[in-house]
Structure formats: structure tokens, C-alpha cells
């Protein structure tokens, strides 16, 4: 096997950059945005992700899960009673069921989001750089290390289970229908993941018990303030502070992140560092983070009431949205450096 050298660019700005598209697609509820995001991912896969025989193009795998999306469409469009504009009504033995236009928009929107999230996961997995955002916290924050690194590891194992399933199909020469594939894959992954997790628990427990670090106690006590802030903010929602909710939450989020950053710097140990942060990386990191925060906390409250007209036609975005859109597109070419 080859001995590969890892490139020196940090992965976090790129990850945030990709997340921006998901957030944009989720909050915009625009067909045009979905197609644009899909096009960016397609370009990313074609020009940035190195092609090798170990991976097949994303669309190859996605087409096999067509029945899953059909079921999802029926569930969202039929059973989600969201909207005010009826499309048609089904009457059967005195029972009537109305399908709303907004529900149909919602169904298409969410299916496209699934496609995009799966695609993002595919890109991240095949780039094999997710470990660069792993870190090591010692002392009582070692639990955070186990959780954070363990979660990333679990997500990798989930993909490994899918890969094992595909290999088993090839190795056994089984011919499953699409529906059978989905049902069997679901049962297979549940069983194998449960077995894996079940075996990991005692190992984690041993790791937790065997830690022998010296640590001052105050950082790990103060960090619990962050979730307390979040829960308090959640309870405020809908009460007297409802109109200020988003602003309060944004403030708490910023405070929480700052506090976490402070504690993390105090206790964080980077692993062998193959990446160097340039000024451009830092700028991109700040821009993408700020952009995600802005979009998430200013999402419109009539999110579920989008009609077909609003969904299909290009919106009259304000100037700053077009600016952000152009900047995001421009960043794509920045991120290509060192890759081609």
C-alpha cells in the first residue's frame, strides 16, 4: 500500500464552506438554490475530490435509493398537514384528506435536502480529512475527547457498515430488489452498529477509568454554563421574551462559543499538526461561521408556508444576499488551491 503525504491545508474552513450550502438551501426554500447547491457539489466531486477505483460517483449509489425518496415524498406531502392552499381532497367512506400545496413544496424541499446532506457526507468521507477536526482534551474534559472523537469515529463506522454491506452483496452474488436492499440494509446496519457499539462501551469505560491527568478543576465546572444557557433560552421561547428570542439565542450562542474557545485553548492539545492556517484560511473560517450564524438566526417564521410560485421563481433577494451568494461561489475557487 502507498505511503501518502497529507496536504497542509486545514479542513475546517472547507467543512464550514460546504455546510454553508446546506444552511442556505435549508433556509431559502428555493428550487433555484437547491440546483445551485447540487451543481456546486457536482463540481466539487468532479474537480476537487481525487477520483480512484475505491469510490463510485455519488449518483451511482443514490439512484438505488429512489424508493426511499418516494416513501418520503408520500409521507411529507400526504401526512404533513402544513399550508393553506389545497391542491386536492381524497374522500373515502366519509373520511376526507386534503393535500396542501405548501406540503408538496415542503416534501420536494426536504427530499432535495436529503440528497444534498448525503452528498455532503459522501464528499467528507471520501476526502478522508475529517480527523483534522479531531482534538484531545485532557483532565476531566477527557470525556469531551471521547465524545467528540468517538462521534466522528462512529460516523465513519456507519459508512464502513454500508461499505461492508455492498461488499457482502458482491461477494455472495445476491440479487436484491431496490426495496429489499433498503430493508435488508436497514436491518443489517442496525444489527452491526449495535454489536459494534456494544463492544465499544467496555473499552471506552476502561479508557475513562484509566485516565491519569492532572487538571485544575475550574474549567470543567464553568463549561456546563453553556448548555444551561441554551436550555434557559429554549424555555423562554413563546413567553414574554418571544420576540427577542432569536436575538437572545444569538447572544448566548456567541457567549457559549467564546467560553468554549477559551476553555478549549486552555486544555486543548493538538495532535500532530499537518495543516498550517494561513490568513486566507482564517478569513474564510470567520466568514463562513458568521454567515451560518446569520442565516440560522434570521430564518423567517413563515418558513413552512412557501407556495409553488415562491419556490420555483428566483426571489427578489436583497443586495447583501446576492453579495453573500457571489462570495460563496468565489470561495469555491479559493478552496481549490493545492488540490488541482
Amino acid at each position, binding site marked *: *500500500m*502507498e*505511503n*501518502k*503525504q*497529507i496536504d497542509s491545508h486545514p479542513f475546517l474552513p472547507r467543512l464550514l464552506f460546504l455546510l454553508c450550502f446546506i444552511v442556505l438551501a435549508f433556509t431559502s426554500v428555493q428550487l433555484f438554490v437547491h440546483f445551485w447547491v447540487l451543481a456546486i457539489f457536482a463540481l466539487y466531486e468532479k474537480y476537487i475530490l481525487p477520483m*480512484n*477505483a*475505491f469510490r463510485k460517483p455519488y449518483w451511482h449509489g443514490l439512484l438505488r435509493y429512489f424508493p426511499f425518496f418516494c416513501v418520503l415524498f408520500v409521507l411529507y406531502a400526504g401526512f404533513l398537514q402544513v399550508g393553506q392552499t389545497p391542491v386536492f381532497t381524497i374522500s373515502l367512506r366519509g373520511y376526507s384528506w386534503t393535500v396542501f400545496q405548501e406540503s408538496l413544496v415542503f416534501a420536494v424541499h426536504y427530499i432535495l435536502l436529503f440528497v444534498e446532506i448525503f452528498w455532503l457526507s459522501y464528499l467528507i468521507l471520501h476526502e*478522508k*480529512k*475529517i*480527523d483534522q477536526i*479531531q482534538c*484531545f482534551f*485532557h483532565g476531566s474534559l*477527557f470525556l469531551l475527547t471521547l465524545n467528540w*472523537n*468517538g462521534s466522528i*469515529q462512529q460516523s465513519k*463506522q456507519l459508512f464502513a457498515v454500508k461499505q*461492508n*454491506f*455492498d*461488499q*457482502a452483496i*458482491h*461477494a*455472495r*452474488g*445476491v440479487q436484491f430488489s431496490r426495496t429489499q436492499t433498503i430493508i*435488508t440494509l436497514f*436491518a*443489517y446496519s442496525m*444489527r*452491526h452498529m449495535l*454489536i*459494534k457499539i*456494544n*463492544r*465499544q*462501551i*467496555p*473499552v471506552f*469505560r*476502561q*479508557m475513562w*477509568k*484509566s*485516565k*491519569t*491527568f492532572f487538571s485544575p478543576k475550574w474549567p470543567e465546572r464553568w463549561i456546563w454554563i453553556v448548555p444551561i444557557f441554551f436550555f434557559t433560552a429554549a424555555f423562554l421561547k413563546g413567553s414574554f421574551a418571544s420576540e427577542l428570542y432569536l436575538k437572545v439565542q444569538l447572544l448566548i450562542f456567541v457567549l457559549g462559543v467564546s467560553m468554549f474557545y477559551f476553555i478549549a485553548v486552555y486544555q486543548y*492539545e493538538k*495532535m*500532530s499538526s*499537518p495543516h498550517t492556517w494561513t490568513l486566507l484560511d482564517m478569513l474564510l473560517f470567520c466568514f463562513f461561521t458568521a454567515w451560518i450564524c446569520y442565516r440560522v438566526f434570521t430564518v423567517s417564521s413563515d418558513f413552512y408556508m412557501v407556495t409553488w410560485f415562491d419556490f420555483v421563481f428566483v426571489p427578489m433577494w436583497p443586495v447583501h444576499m446576492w453579495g453573500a451568494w457571489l462570495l460563496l461561489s468565489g470561495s469555491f475557487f479559493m478552496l481549490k488551491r493545492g488540490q488541482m
Partner: protein
Amino acid sequence: MIECKQVDFRYRRSQKKILSQFSFHFEEAKHYYIKGEHGAGKSTLMKLLASQQFSFVEGEMQGDILHFIPQPRILFFDARDVELFFYEKIYDEFYYILRCVGYPRNNIETQIALIMSYFQIESWSHRLVSDLSMGEKQYLKLILAIATKQYQLMCLDEPFLHLDDVHKHFILQYLEQISQDFDTSLIVIDHQIQAWEQYFHFETIELTTQDAYQPWFTLPENYQINSFPEQKVDFIKAPLPAIQEQCITLKPGQINMIVGKNGSGKTTMCKYLMDMFVPANIAISCKRMLMADAKTMYFYTTLGEEWTDVDGIDLHPYATFYSQHLSYGQCKVEMFQRLLADGPQLLILDDLFDGLHDSYRSGAYRMIQELKNKGSMIILTGTQDLDMEGIDEVISI
């Protein structure tokens, strides 16, 4: 060190007792070898010995297991267990483990360099875990387990699975050294004990099988293999440059053996033949492959469900057995039999004999010979050439 008093054990959802009235006293500074057929309860006993809370195994236990050494001084290593790698880079993996066991930060780099140099894996520090072969991962896992902390007792369950002789030698040498320097005791399960006996003197504990799963499938009299044309396959499109110059001739009634050290590309060659990367354009309609990790090939919970689409199999003798309760060797042999039932024209057996008990080995040899006589092409892989009659060609990579 550890004393077992009349221990009974049965797994959850299983009727059968895996251990019955087992009593033994494990003494300090001695080495033990647990012997027995597949399903005799060796791994279960090992898991019970390795943890004072019995947390590695779920089931119902009666009797007593008394531990006279503290838990942090006992290592449990199971070669078949999940891959517990946290990081993608091998260097980071060492860093993480050493920090977990309390190494000071300023000494850590020297320690990593020392370990890597001892086991001759200095060139691996920038490699990615996902690029390692199964044998290389096994070697790394073993080094991370044994060389990062001092233990009083090491419970090693099939540690040499998938390892080549060079890697085995380094591990044995290290174990011998620490057992002399620190009086570390070993409890070992391994179906090929010969390599160990050159380094250690073992006390043997023999466990007997009680109504365990046994290989059961025989080729029916009307068993037929469809003939296929002789063809030469090259590996130019294979994803590993090291094997791109290889080629293999597939013809009916032939057994080929691919031999190579860990990481040489044996499994990649097999996967390529099975179209797992790109279509290899092989004119054979019925191809089957037994993966080295056979447990991942089971789609269903019980063994009976795996055979429902096979004609003529009305009654599977172990239809209600759960695949997850089978031992490593049993899993391999059951899946091997399941693949035979399809009448494969090309059958690839990746590391079939590694970790198999002698009684299972001889049965598998016989089946392979029968299959060859019926007109199948069989490809075996291994880290060393098998002393087996009927192998027509050995491909060294």
C-alpha cells in the same frame, strides 16, 4: 492471580451453557494456553477472566471468578473485535493512546519514535489507517495494545490473525522481553500454537465442546458446476499499483494460491476479480468470495434465514442459531458452506485457513478438493504457502 470456582455461563437468548462447572487457579508469572475446538467457550472464558465486572460479555453467570490483581493491570485483546481507531493518521493514534495512559507531553514524541522503530513501522507515521490492509491494521492494533502500557496480565485472543511471519516474530520477541523484564503473564488463545512454543512455556487448559455448531453441509449427488471458458485476467485497472503487473489464468478444475506478506494486495486482487472496484470483464456468471471477516457477510439474524433461497435445503440443522453467537471459525465455515451451495464456478477464499481449528481445516480441504473435481476454479490467499495437495499454481506477490 485469578481463581475460577465452578463457573457456569450461558449467553443471553441462548439455551446452551457455554461453560459448565469450570474451575481453575491461574498463578502469577506463568503463561497459559487455552485449547479447544470452535465454540468450546475459549473466548468467553477469556472475556470473563479479563474484566472484573465481566463487561466484555453479556449473559448469565454462576460460580465465582476471583481477581487478585487490579483491573488496570490486565489487558484484554480480541483480534476479531471492532476497529477502535480514533484517528485517521497512525501517528495521532499513538499520541492519543499514550496520552490516555498518562504519558507526559514532553516525552511523547520520543516514546512514539521508540515504539515505531522497535516494530519497524517508522515509515507508517504519515500513513492513514483507512489505507492499511487487514493484516497491517491487526499489527498496528496489537502494537497499540501491548507496547503502550505495562500490564501484569495479558489476555490475548487470536492475536496473530491475518499476521505474516515477520510481524509475528516482532510481536513474540517483544512479549518475551516484557515477560522477562516485568513478569508479565500471558493467557493465549491461538489455533496455531507452534510459533508461540519457541518463545514460551505454556500450561495448557483444554475446554471441550458441548453440543456446539459443527460443519454440516455435504455436496449433493446431483451437484453440478457449469463449465466456463479458460481466460486470462490482468490487473491493470486495479487500484493498487503493486498488483497491476500481475495476471491470473482462470480455468475449470484448478486451485490457485495467492501468497504475500501483509499489505501486498492479496485482498485487493480478490475484490478486483469480484468487480468490487471496476468491472473486471470476467466471463463467469457465478462468482463467490468468502471475505476474511466472514461475520460481515451475514444479512440476517439466524442461520436458517441465510439459506431460504437455496433449493433442496429443507432443514438447516442449526436454523435457529444466531449468527452473532457463532465463534470466528464457525462463522467462516458456515458462510463457506453457504457459498458452496450456490455451485460457484469461481470461488475465492480470502484467508480461509487463518484462525481455523485443525478439525475444521481438514473438512474445508476436503470440500475444496471435491469442488475442484466438479470443475470449479478456486483461489486461496494466505501469508504463507499452504502445505496442501492439489494446489496447481502459487502466485507470489
